């Protein structure tokens, strides 16, 4: 019995270390389950969290915008492609808000408040921007880099997704799908 104790202890420690390694690798791997579901036409429910609004004491969430089309965009002031897509998002927001159909909702990613605020001012971003401190919401969308954009329909389902820099044609196509 005693003879088995040491190998058993060593085995437990080894399994523990292998388990930790596996957890570390899995937690860093890219989660593309949303794209796969959208591609199948399953349109998964958009994850939501109540987050502080940049430049305000208010809070906002994706769930609170149910009934509207939402273009959810993860961005950061240090992200170079985000500069290119900022005017596209602003135009989309003006179009959506003018018709009352919806809104663009920005979410900052690993960015400081002053830097996000400066970026938002520089690019005249009039849409609400949420601060996702610790990237908890981003993780639920499988977001591990920016920019990434998710288009959510009136029923709160993700109908299109783009991981990378969007262009006008993506927005036009995705909004048509969300409004259908």
């Amino acid at each position, binding site marked *: 019995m005693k003879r088995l*104790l040491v190998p058993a202890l*060593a085995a437990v*420690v080894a399994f523990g270390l292998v388990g930790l390694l596996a957890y570390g690798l899995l937690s860093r791997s890219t989660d593309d389950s949303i794209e796969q579901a959208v591609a199948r036409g399953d349109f998964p429910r958009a994850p939501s969290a109540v987050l502080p609004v940049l430049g305000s004491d208010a809070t906002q969430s994706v769930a609170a915008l149910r009934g509207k089309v939402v273009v959810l965009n993860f961005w950061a*002031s240090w*992200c170079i492609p985000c500069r290119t897509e900022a005017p596209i998002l602003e135009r989309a927001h003006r179009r959506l808000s003018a018709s009352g159909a919806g809104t663009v909702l920005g979410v900052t990613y*690993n960015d400081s408040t002053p830097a996000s605020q400066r970026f938002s001012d520089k690019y005249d971003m009039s849409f609400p921007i949420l601060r996702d*401190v*610790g990237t908890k919401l981003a993780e639920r969308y499988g977001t591990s880099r920016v920019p990434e954009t998710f288009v959510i329909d009136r029923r709160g389902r993700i109908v299109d997704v783009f991981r990378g820099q969007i262009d006008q044609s993506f927005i036009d196509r995705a909004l048509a799908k969300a409004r259908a």
Partner: protein
Amino acid sequence: MRRRLAVATLLLALLAPAGAAIAATPKVDLVDIEDEVMCVDCGIPLNTAEGAQPDSERDFIRGLIAQGKTKQQIKRALVAEYGEDVLALPETSGVGITAYAVPIALAVAVIVALALLVPRWRRRPAAGMAGADGAVVIPGGSPGLSQADAARLDEDLARYEG
């Protein structure tokens, strides 16, 4: 003369607390903070990280240093902006606790293993010291000396020492 002394004393009394306050506030620089925080986007210490995100993090720290914030205040501000993951030391709750628990568990396992094995190792040579043929067994299991060889060795050693 007495008036000068009084003015000097008054000046010293006024300046002393300010000097003490300056001395009590440790000077913080970027290098001092960088090695204790992480690049949140790349998951490595900030002092070894390169890229747009870590540069942005450094700018934020520089801004706080310019405001005269202490190291602790800067770390708190970083957590408020980037979350707990910005600290180089892992959290003491959730999965982060494994970073503390695993080394402790390993140390305990090693101590338990030693506690079990050391008495066994110590017993083994004692039991085997005298061979069946009267030979002296060298601990570790190598072939031993016969009693005649041992006696000759003792004689040689005695001659050498004499």
